[in-house]
């Protein structure tokens, strides 16, 4: 049984893990960089250890230092959160060697999930539907042409060593394929010393739908419904919803079973997520397994009533999942908005600095996981996620209007945030109707609508602004007149 866990993370996810540990009686060890000495996770953990400088490589990614701290503190387990070391199979392997329980899948399973080509091969074998394309690297133009003919144009030529959009070429016909194939292999040769090109069908309008998985060491496997994460910017999720508007119980059962099969195929243990793309015609394609707790896990908690972090600990302790697939019933609807410190109009550039003032929303059906408090700092060293604002409702509309209210109540002074963008998205008919896709922002001109909304907000607040400016000037005049009376409050001077 785990009695003391080191949380190898920071920010809201560290707080999230501490909450469950407090509830189930596990001692917590926080680690913090010099940048984070004033962070809430330091304050709320049973113990806290400084592990180095602000730069992630010198602290939260420093495997040796973290392993050393686990041993020093006497922790018997480590929770990696998400990001940082959460999907690092080397780290998971080191923990296994040191008899430290790594809260997540085995290192081998993690290796498999993280290797695109090996994972693809395993999934093909397990008859998991994946995006049509070459089963392996293509050896020449002719093979690429033959596969493209088979799956139909347009197709993507992808370098297996690329990632995040790099090394990908879109081709619309055989002529374009011929032209681009040479260039793509050339690039690959130049960069990596070998040609490593895949051919894959290009999918134009897709939804991102994922299934929460849980698998214990006794091979009991369940999915805990789906989450739709189609509202994205630059391949980063912004808003997540559970259940999806396009998944009914029949589809949930069917695709959920595929997700379960995928977990079994890689001998996955603990909690993970199977990600799918869904086309408008209803086809689902498996993409990958995320071998960790997801940022968006709270919406699954809201519709299932489960504590997913507790489940992680229970599974790591070797316990069996205490229910079967049929016991699970989806209850209501939940939405999550990721509250990022970023400037929407500066291409989502991060916005950092001290937070002078913050009001955290609450109320019926509202849950907000955040590290913010008045006086804290949003650091430029780490990602821009300040909090996760979630709402629940008996139906989607109730969850949506609660989210609108909560977004209005969320006041953060000090950095730019994604809140105005969400207010604009939440009120569009497209969002209300569930007409989502991963290109939602571009497809529906959301940024232009946001600009209009901001202008309308200014219009609505112009009189208040003018009034505030007048009072400010009035104060300023009276200060001049009575500036000898130092320390006198404005209010008394103004009357």
């Amino acid at each position, binding site marked *: 049984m785990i009695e003391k866990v080191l949380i190898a993370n920071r920010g809201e996810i560290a707080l999230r893990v501490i909450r469950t540990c407090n509830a189930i009686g596990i001692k917590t060890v926080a680690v913090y960089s010099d940048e984070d000495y004033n962070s809430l996770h330091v304050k709320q953990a049973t113990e806290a250890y400084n592990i180095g400088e602000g730069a992630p490589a010198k602290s939260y990614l420093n495997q040796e230092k973290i392993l050393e701290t686990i041993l020093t503190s006497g922790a018997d387990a480590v929770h990696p959160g998400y990001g940082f070391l959460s999907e690092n199979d080397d780290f998971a392997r080191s923990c296994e060697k040191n008899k430290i329980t790594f809260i997540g899948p085995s290192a081998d399973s993690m290796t498999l999930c993280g290797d695109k080509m090996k994972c693809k091969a395993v999934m093909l074998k397990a008859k998991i539907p994946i995006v049509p394309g070459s089963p392996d690297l293509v050896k020449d133009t002719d093979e690429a042409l033959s596969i493209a003919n088979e799956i139909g144009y347009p197709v993507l030529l992808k370098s297996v060593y690329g990632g995040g959009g790099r090394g990908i070429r879109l081709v619309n016909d055989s002529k374009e394929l011929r032209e681009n194939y040479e260039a793509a292999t050339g690039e690959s040769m130049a960069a990596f010393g070998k040609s490593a090109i895949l051919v894959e069908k290009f999918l134009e309008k897709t939804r991102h739908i994922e299934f929460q998985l849980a698998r214990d060491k006794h091979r009991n496997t369940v999915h805990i419904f789906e989450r739709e994460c189609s509202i994205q910017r630059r391949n980063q999720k912004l808003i997540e919803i559970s259940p999806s508007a396009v998944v009914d119980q029949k589809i949930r059962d069917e695709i959920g079973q595929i997700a379960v099969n995928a977990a079994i195929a890689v001998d996955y243990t603990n909690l993970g997520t199977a990600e799918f793309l869904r086309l408008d015609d209803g086809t689902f394609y498996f993409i990958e397994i995320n071998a960790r707790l997801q940022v968006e896990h709270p919406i699954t908690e809201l519709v299932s009533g489960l504590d997913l972090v507790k489940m992680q600990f229970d599974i790591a302790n070797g316990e069996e999942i205490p229910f079967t697939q049929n016991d699970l019933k989806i209850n209501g609807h939940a939405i999550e908005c990721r509250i990022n410190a970023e400037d929407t109009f500066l291409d989502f550039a991060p916005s950092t600095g001290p937070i002078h*003032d913050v009001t955290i929303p609450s109320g019926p059906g509202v849950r907000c996981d955040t590290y913010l408090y008045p006086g804290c700092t949003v650091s430029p060293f780490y990602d821009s996620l300040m909090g996760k604002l979630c709402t629940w409702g008996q139906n989607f509309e109730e969850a949506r209007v609660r989210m609108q209210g909560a977004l209005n109540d969320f*006041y953060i*002074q000090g950095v730019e945030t994604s809140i105005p963008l969400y207010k604009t998205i939440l009120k569009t008919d497209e969002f209300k109707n569930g007409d989502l896709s991963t290109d939602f922002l571009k497809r529906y001109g959301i940024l232009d609508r946001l600009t209009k909304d*901001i*202008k309308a*907000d*200014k*219009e*609505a*607040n*112009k*009189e*208040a*602004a*003018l*009034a*505030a*400016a*007048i*009072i*400010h*000037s*009035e*104060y*300023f*005049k009276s*200060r*001049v*007149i009575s*500036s*000898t009376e130092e320390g006198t409050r*404005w*209010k008394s001077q*103004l*009357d």
Partner: protein
Amino acid sequence: MECKIEDIEGTFHGEIVDKLGKNEYIIKLNDREQNLKILNMDSRKIEFVLDQKYHKVKYLDSTTSKMNLVVDGVLITLNKHANLDEIVYKNLGIAGSTDSELALKSPIPGKVISIALKKGASVKKGDVVCILESMKMQVAIKAHKDGKIKSIRIKEGGSVAKNGIIVEIE
């Protein structure tokens, strides 16, 4: 006060019509009189009820011509027409220096943001001598007469007390 609001058409006029006491005012905004009650106020923020509607406003930064405010979470930039500030400035001038004096005295306590002139430079009455900041507002301090800068008594980044000498002009 006359002003424009960035991104909003038209010009706006507003003034205090009456002070009712208990932090209540009658304020005229573009010809419409409204009741304004201050709930809370300091140099960086104000909370008030304007015609029964609560508003929370943060004062960010301010110069003689521009003011940045966050009104109920919305960033608004006001471009002020100069005459208000001239009134303020006149008020400042009353407490300041007269032609016969050498010393240009500071009408307010503040931090010295910049000094426009070097020792020995010629100045005309009304030329900006330095910029002071006080309560997050920047105020240009102007020469009280024609002449030459005899000495500079302030430093950039330093501060000056009310009635402290800024420069001597002879």
